[in-house]
């Protein structure tokens, strides 16, 4: 608190030249607010006015749930019966209570209730979680103006438009507010918009001058005002409105608006008036509905269900027509059926009626073609798969204690088919922490530590070279130039990482300049100047940490904080800022002027007077900007510095160039007069004038050096991106950050590299929308043309686009072209995008390419895209839970994404695909035998199997093996998955669930059904099947046939699996044993229960050798084609996992490690991004160089000491 008050005395706005003067420029007059879209009127401090129409707006209560208490049942049921299969089963269940049903009613209703109940319970649980979250938010408390200048607390949900609220430090704003005043005299406040755009740097908001006096509770006693403004809309960066106060009208713009869900920082308190509440607020307007997501496989399954439905319908129709024909023409002759005494159902005189009623019976009888248990099994399997994901110790983050979490289990297999990853930057790829890493002073590079990118690249290169070494030593020691490559590139040794400095924001290491040693360097004076610029040229405020006695710094950008920390470590500690001075250690620098950083200027300058009275112009800025402004004799170090800057840029570091100049007193005062004059001008030209005058000062500078700051990547990010790229995934970065930052991170993550052609699509400043759009289109056409004309095989393109341009590019008529361009580029980086745009881009990719997208992010600003993407992944890291709440999967760190996709995704995809295929196979094989029998039973609807066999078929006898397939199957082990990321492509290419595969399995089912039925009936139809002379009755034949089915199907699944543990063995062979056991027990029961199956195994079948012989014959005959097919495929068209299985089986990987590592390094998709690609590019470049130099030296033995 005290700190706040001390600082409150500062009028920070006086420091600024550009940012804070801007409101005055708009004071020329209020916006003309008329017409539709600008109807909102807010009566400040008069919430009572908003109690009734027409000023009654939505309350501040928010709800993000899908259902409420009353709508849950109808809505959730509607969702459930949206599935065709469920609808069919519902109809079947209804019919099953009528006498038309060939089965008992319970056997139809129970599974349906189970399936629907399970899914609905899951929905309810998820919605309940959301509801609890809402309650928490809605019941947060905020101080509001009650009456007579008294403030009191009330919960967020009760807040009304027009309320005056007081928000204190580190609190969230409860609604969109108009800032009236703050604890600072000049009415500014700092806001953290993490939840809106993911940025953690603070933004300055500034109240109108007229409301500044309203800075204490009592002053609101008689405060009234009227705001006329735009209607609720989702645009975060715009606001248009007028404020009527004291009979004057003032214009409002976004800098007075405090948005809901952003946080007040570094400011003791602010007063504000509620403008937009609840769902009207900008952040809620940005919220997208959470859609119910379904995986690709599941959607395709629907089509298969349609196919099966058609099949069902066809055979039912055939059945019923057959029945009608038989009934009409044949049945009158079948005296033993007493055709003259029948009910309607069998009446030969009404064949049409019998046909129609029979259709219903047939639809139910053949219902086994549509596997209801498939849905149950899939639900069970997915829950178990999700448990595996949750339990995976290798995705457990020890630091935060967060495991990976599959929040919705119905997308597991989708993880194996991802094509494009859309990633947030801050908090996802980076830690949002800047580390001062290197610098170049007076043409000398300092700083020995290497960025993570360099380390990762060096490791990759080392392993590649090792590989080449080995190859060379075997390939009769061919000539190679690896020695030189090594010298040029691998310059860092890894153990440096061990004693890395623990200071946050500072990873610099170089004994030449540390601990005062810089004094001994040749250019000590320049070095001192360098450090001074770091310590003086900024807008930060120091804060004394009382425990440690050292200073920490609060700044608008994290870079500045890193500079200050660095300066402190070098002995230039910035310790105090007053209105007019900056104190570095004991030295005082009088601050004369500050020309601060704006995104347009890309530089910042301070003019100070040091203790000797010398006036210094200190400037830092983007290198290109600074280099343009150097004087002739200031370019001494330009060449070296440029080289260093390129290196830093390549290493993924953020760079700034530093420069200075000395100024004579008279020179300064002349300039300052002009400057002050311009500052006080009123009129539209003022900004331009100020800029011109600033430009005059920032000229003829002398270059000092450059800094390199590492935007600290999260652990393992470059490696992970590299692996994902090798797995063939495309990665797009969508960030709310500035273009420069985004590009830097692009380099850091190896999404960009030197030599990649960057296509920047930017917007030209023009008022006419059409012109801008036209121009953007032209840029895109040119870029596409350029890509098309590119001949170089290794050329890679990167697309960089910012939010404003994106707004045009996402318009309906342009977006297709934009997408085409983006897809051709190896990496795509979108900067300054709003949450809504993130969602729109995601939708564009999802719908435009038709491939699976995965969005990953950590903040509330990513919620939109997380919900929009096919799969949303939330980082359950430090900030907030909104992303996690909206996500389908949550992981603690970005690097776990690799394992989540490459291991779990791959497995789950194959498991579910095989499982679904097998399910269809099994139900076709079984269901069709029923149909064939119909043809032999006059299409009468008689089933050859006992009701109990049919009931148990899906429930007990074939369910567990298929579940074990879905849960435990793995084609290759997790290590192999990670070592051979290319294997992942089997998923996106959909090798295991294409129509070829599905129809193959269905064909196999058809074949099996034919074999099972016809072999059995030929063997059993007339002859005695026992030595005692008895012939087979219907139950005996049915039971034999069913035995064959159980054997054939279970053997089939055993052939399908490639990974066996005792569980699979238990389930498969156990299922067969269970069948015999069931038959035995069922036969033992009293004949009133078992009916025709009484004693059937013990008395009739088991003693007959032909029963066993038939089982063996049919089982083998059923599986023979599949066996031949997979043998053929394995032998002559093996898939990757087959080969790897063989390599593993013969332990070749252990015996021939060279081959193993070589294959590992080759097992990647052709990729343009990731550091492997970067290393490749580098190697190519070096090789190119070396080829030019004729290889002369004899190669040394491939020795490498490290």
């Amino acid at each position, binding site marked *: 608190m005290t700190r706040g008050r001390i600082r409150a005395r500062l009028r920070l706005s006086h420091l600024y030249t550009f940012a804070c003067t801007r409101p005055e420029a708009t004071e020329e007059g209020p916006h003309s607010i008329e017409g539709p879209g600008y109807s909102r009127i807010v009566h400040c401090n008069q919430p009572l006015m908003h109690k009734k129409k027409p000023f009654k707006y939505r309350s501040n209560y928010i709800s993000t749930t899908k259902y409420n208490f009353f709508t849950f049942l109808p809505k959730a049921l509607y969702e459930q019966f949206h599935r065709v299969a469920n609808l069919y089963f519902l109809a079947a269940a209804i019919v099953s209570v009528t006498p038309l049903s060939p089965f008992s009613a319970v056997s139809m209703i129970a599974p349906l209730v189970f399936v629907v109940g399970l899914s609905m319970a899951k929905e309810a649980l998820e919605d309940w979680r959301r509801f609890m979250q809402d309650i928490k938010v809605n019941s947060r408390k905020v101080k509001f103006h009650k009456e007579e200048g008294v403030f009191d607390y009330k919960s967020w949900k009760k807040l009304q438009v027009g309320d005056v609220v007081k928000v204190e430090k580190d609190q969230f704003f409860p609604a969109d507010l108009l800032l009236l005043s703050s604890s600072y005299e000049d009415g500014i406040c700092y806001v953290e918009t993490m939840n809106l755009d993911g940025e953690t740097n603070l933004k300055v908001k500034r109240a109108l001058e007229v409301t500044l006096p309203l800075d204490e509770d009592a002053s609101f006693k008689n405060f009234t005002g009227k705001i006329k403004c735009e209607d609720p809309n989702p645009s975060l960066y715009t606001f248009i409105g007028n404020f009527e106060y004291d009979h004057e009208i003032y214009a409002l713009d976004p800098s007075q608006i405090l948005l809901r869900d952003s946080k007040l920082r570094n400011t003791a308190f602010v007063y504000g008036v509620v403008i937009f509440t609840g769902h009207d607020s900008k952040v809620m307007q940005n919220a997208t509905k959470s859609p119910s997501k379904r995986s690709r496989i599941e959607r395709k399954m629907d089509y298969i269900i349609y196919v099966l439905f058609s099949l069902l319908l066809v055979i039912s129709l055939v059945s019923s027509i057959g029945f009608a024909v038989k009934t009409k023409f*044949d049945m009158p*002759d079948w*005296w*033993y*059926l007493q055709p003259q005494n*029948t*009910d309607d159902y*069998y009446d030969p005189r009404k064949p049409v009626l019998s046909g129609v009623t029979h259709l219903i019976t047939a639809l139910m009888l053949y219902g086994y073609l549509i596997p209801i248990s498939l849905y149950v099994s899939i639900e069970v399997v997915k829950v178990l798969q999700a448990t595996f994901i949750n339990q995976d110790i290798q995705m457990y983050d020890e630091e935060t204690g967060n495991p990976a979490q599959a929040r919705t289990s119905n997308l597991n297999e989708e993880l194996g088919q991802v094509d494009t990853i859309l990633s947030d930057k801050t908090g996802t790829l980076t830690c949002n922490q800047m580390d001062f890493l290197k610098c170049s002073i007076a043409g000398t590079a300092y700083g020995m530590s290497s960025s993570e990118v360099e380390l990762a690249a060096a490791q990759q290169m080392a392993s590649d070279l090792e590989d080449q070494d*080995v190859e060379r*030593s*075997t390939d009769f020691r061919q000539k190679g130039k690896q020695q030189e490559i090594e010298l040029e590139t691998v310059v860092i040794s890894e153990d440096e990482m061990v004693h890395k400095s623990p200071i946050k924001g500072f990873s610099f290491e170089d004994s030449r300049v540390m601990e005062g040693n810089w004094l001994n360097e040749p250019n000590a004076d320049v070095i001192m100047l360098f450090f001074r610029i770091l310590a003086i040229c900024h807008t930060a405020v120091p804060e004394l940490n009382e425990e440690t006695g050292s200073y920490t710094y609060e700044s608008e950008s994290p870079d500045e904080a890193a500079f200050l920390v660095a300066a402190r470590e070098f002995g230039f500690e910035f310790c105090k800022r007053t209105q007019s001075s900056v104190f570095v250690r004991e030295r005082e620098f009088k601050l004369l002027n500050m020309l601060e950083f704006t995104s347009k200027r890309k530089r910042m300058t301070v003019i100070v007077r040091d203790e000797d009275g010398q006036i210094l112009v200190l400037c830092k800025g983007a290198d290109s900007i600074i280099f343009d402004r150097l004087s002739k004799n200031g370019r001494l170090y330009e060449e070296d510095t440029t080289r260093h800057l390129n290196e830093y840029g390549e290493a993924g570091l953020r760079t700034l160039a530093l420069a200075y100049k000395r100024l004579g007193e008279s020179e300064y005062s002349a300039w300052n007069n002009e400057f002050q004059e311009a500052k006080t001008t009123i009129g539209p030209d003022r900004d331009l004038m100020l800029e011109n005058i600033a430009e005059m000062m920032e000229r003829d500078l002398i270059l000092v050096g450059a800094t390199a700051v590492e935007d600290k990547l999260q652990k393992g990010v470059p490696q992970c991106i590299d692996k994902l790229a090798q797995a063939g995934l495309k990665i797009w970065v969508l960030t709310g950050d500035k273009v420069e930052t985004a590009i830097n991170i692009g380099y850091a993550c190896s999404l960009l590299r030197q030599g990649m052609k960057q296509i920047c699509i930017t917007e030209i400043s023009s008022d006419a929308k059409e012109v801008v759009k036209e121009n953007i289109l032209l840029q895109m056409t040119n870029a596409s043309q350029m890509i098309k004309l590119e001949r170089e095989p290794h050329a890679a393109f990167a697309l960089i686009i910012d939010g404003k341009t994106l707004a045009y590019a996402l318009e309906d008529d342009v977006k297709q072209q934009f997408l085409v361009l983006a897809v051709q580029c190896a990496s795509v980086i979108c900067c300054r995008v709003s949450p809504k745009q993130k969602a729109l881009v995601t939708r564009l990719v999802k719908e435009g390419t038709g491939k699976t997208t995965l969005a990953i992010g950590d903040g509330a600003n990513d919620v939109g895209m997380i919900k929009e993407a096919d799969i949303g992944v939330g980082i359950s890291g430090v900030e907030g839970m909104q992303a996690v709440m909206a996500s389908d999967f949550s992981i603690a760190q970005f690097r776990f994404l690799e394992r989540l996709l490459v291991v779990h995704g791959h497995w789950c995809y194959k498991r579910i695909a095989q499982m679904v295929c097998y399910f269809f196979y099994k139900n076709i094989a079984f269901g069709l035998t029923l149909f064939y*029998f119909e043809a*032999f*039973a006059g299409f*009468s609807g*008689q089933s050859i199997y006992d009701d109990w066999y049919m009931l148990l078929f899906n429930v007990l006898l074939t369910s567990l093996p298929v579940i074990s397939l879905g849960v435990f199957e793995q084609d290759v082990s997790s290590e192999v998955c990670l070592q051979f990321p*290319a294997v992942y492509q089997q998923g996106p290419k959909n090798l295991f669930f294409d129509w070829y595969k599905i129809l193959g399995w269905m064909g196999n089912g058809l074949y099996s059904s034919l074999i099972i039925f016809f072999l059995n*009936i030929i*063997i*059993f*139809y*007339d002859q*005695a099947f*026992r*030595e*005692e*002379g008895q*012939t087979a*009755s*219907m139950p005996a034949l049915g039971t034999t046939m069913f035995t064959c089915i159980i054997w054939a199907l279970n053997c089939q699944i055993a052939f399908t699996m490639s990974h066996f543990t005792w569980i699979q063995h238990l389930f498969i062979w156990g299922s067969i044993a269970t069948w015999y056991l069931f038959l035995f027990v069922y036969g033992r029961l009293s*004949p009133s229960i078992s009916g025709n199956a009484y004693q059937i195994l013990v*008395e009739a079948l088991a003693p007959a*050798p*032909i029963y066993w*012989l*038939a089982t*063996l*014959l049919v089982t083998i005959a059923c599986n*023979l084609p599949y*066996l*031949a097919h997979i*043998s053929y495929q394995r*032998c*002559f068209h*093996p*898939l*990757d996992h087959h080969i*790897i299985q063989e390599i593993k*089986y*013969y332990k*070749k990987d252990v*015996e*021939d490690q*060279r081959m193993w590592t070589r*294959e590992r390094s080759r097992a*990647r*998709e052709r990729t343009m991004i990731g550091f492997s690609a970067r290393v490749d590019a580098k190697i190519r470049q070096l090789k190119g160089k070396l080829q030019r130099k004729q290889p002369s030296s004899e190669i040394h033995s*491939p*020795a*490498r000491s490290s």
Partner: protein
Amino acid sequence: MDTNGATTSSAAGGGSTSKSSSKKHSRKPVISTFTIIGIIFIPLGLVSLSASEKVVEIVDRYDESCVPSDYSNDKLKFIQNPSINKSCVRTLTVPKLMKSPVFIYYQLDNYYQNHRRYVKSRSDKQLRSVSDEKSTKDCSPEDKTVDGPIVPCGLVAWSLFNDTYVFSVNSKTIEVNKHDIAWKSDKEHKFGSNVYPKNFQSGGLIGGAKLNSSVPLSKQEDLMVWMRTAALPTFRKLYGKIEQDLQANEKIQVVIQNNYNTYSFSGKKKLVLSTTSWIGGKNDFLGIAYIIVGGLCLFLAVCFILLYVIKPRPLGDPSYLSWNRSPAGHPN
């Protein structure tokens, strides 16, 4: 460096040895599986076939010839006229020695015992115990008469087969044993020993055979056999056993009471005499199927061997990995 070299050489050595060993091992699982199946199946097929060959079977179709020539245009009239004598004499020649027991079957054709209406039209409860006499709800229209429930009710019992056969060799009657033609479980558990036929075949429509109402159902083995409904429209049912050897070339005279109506739906009726072996009756198909499947497996094994000789692929050869095959593979 040293270690590097060492691993290199050993790796190379390992590579070559594994190559040679893989040649030996290659295809083994596939080829051996097919071979083993073939080796097991063909003998099994031969054994079954020989068992089937040992079975001697006489099949005689009599539905056509047992109709007097003056009725041959209207067989239905013949069969439906109770006043006409239905007996008919057939002579069968024994082709080979038929060892006792010789089983007698009747075979019906185009007869839908598996029709849903037919299958359901019975009451197992009623057959089992007297107390459930009245549970005839599924038996309609053969459920009850004015005198009370029909026992046994339903179409199945009502349509009981009623042709009879009397065998003689050289005018010497051969004993036909009609005991133990039904399953033991039927006799002991499913057909009650205190349940007697009641009101059976007393309605307006007479279906098939009549039952002796003084004999309990548990002794009516013909009924039990009949009520085990057949799975297919062509079926055989056990009629009885001849417990004496029939010599080759013996002429057997059969006097058939041709009562059962198959003429209305033009079904055939056959009389079958057959011995059995361990696989039951004559069943060449099983043996042939075994031989075919076994042969197919051997054929596949040979194919795979040939394919392997023509186009060998060492197991675990990394050059077959997709990234090594596709031309678009990673340049390196």
